[in-house]
C-alpha cells in the first residue's frame, strides 16, 4: 500500500477521483489529461471560479472537492 489517499475533484462538472502525490494543480491536470499537458496546449483553467494562470499551475495547491474548469477555444459566433 502506498498510503496515498484518493481524492475527489469536480472537473468540468463531473467527479474525478484520483491519487495524487502532490496536491498541486499541474499534477492533477497531468493526470486528467493523461500526461498531455504541454506549453502549447491551448487551454485555460479556473479553480473555484477563479482563473489560475498557466505559470502558476505548478504552485497552485488544490483541495478535496475543488471545482475545476478546463476550457479551450471552440466554434462560436
Amino acid at each position, binding site marked *: 500500500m502506498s498510503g496515498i489517499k484518493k481524492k475527489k475533484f469536480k472537473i468540468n462538472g463531473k467527479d474525478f477521483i484520483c491519487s495524487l502525490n502532490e496536491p498541486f494543480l499541474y499534477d492533477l491536470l497531468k493526470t486528467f489529461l493523461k500526461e498531455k499537458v504541454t506549453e502549447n496546449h491551448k*487551454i485555460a483553467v479556473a479553480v473555484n471560479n477563479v482563473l489560475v494562470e498557466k505559470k502558476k499551475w505548478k504552485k497552485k495547491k488544490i483541495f478535496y472537492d475543488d471545482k475545476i*474548469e*478546463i*476550457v479551450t477555444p471552440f*466554434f462560436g*459566433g
Partner: protein
Amino acid sequence: MESDELKLDGEKFKSRLIMGTALFPNIDILNKSLKSSGTEIITLAIRRLNLTNNDSFLAQIEKKYKFLPNTAGCFTKKEAILTAELARETLETHWIKLELISDKEMLLPDPIELFDACKDLIKKKFKVFAYCSDDPVLCKRLEDLGCEAVMPLVSPIGSALGVRNEHNLEIIRKMCSGNIFVDAGIGKPSDVVKIMELGFDGVLLNSSVARSLNPVEMSEAMKLAVLSGRKGFNSGTIEKSKLALGSTSFKGKISNF
C-alpha cells in the same frame, strides 16, 4: 483615393466584415466561407475541453485570422468576466466580444449587467466589443465608457429578421463617433447594404451565412454587400424628397400640343 481602412485597437483592417465560426455544416465549408468572405477577424467561443473530441478548434482553422473570443451564453457579470479572463489566458488576446444575455428564448442582451461588466473589463485592460440592444443612449454610454466597439443588434440573434428599427440605427450613428458594428439579426445581403449605407463601421454575422444553402457563396455575397454599402455611404447618398425631381431637363423640349 483616401484610405478607408477600419481601425481597431490601433490595428488597421481592410475588411469590415467580422465572421462567426459556429453552425457551419463542416470545417471545410467553414474555412472556404471565411476565405470567400475576405474577413480578417473571426469570433470564437470558450468552452469546456472535451477529451473525446480530438479535433481542436485551433488545429482546424487557418492561423491568419485575428481572434475575437466571445462570452456567449453568459447570464451574469461574474460568468462573463471569468470567461473573458479564460479567453485572454488561452488565446493571449485582450479583445473580448462581451455578450451578456437576459433570457434563453430571445437571447436579448441584458443592458444593466452588460454596462457593469464593461466597466470592470475595461479596468482589467480588456478591449471590449459590447454586444447590446439598439438603444441609442445605451450605445452612447458604452462608447463613453471606453468600449473598443459598440455592437447593437438589429433583431434577435439568428432570427434573420433584418433591420427592424432603422431610425434607431440612424440615431446611434449620429450620437456615436467611434466604431459601431451591427452584430445580430442580419438575414440577407440587402440588410448589410442598408446598415453600411447608414455609416456603420462594419457588421458581424454568422447564422445568415452558416445556415444558408450555400455558405461559401453567401459569404462572398455578404462581402460584396459590405463593400457596396460602404462605397454608397462614402459617396454621399442624395436626400429624399416627397416630390418628384426629374432628371431630364424640360429645357429644349418640343412645344406642348
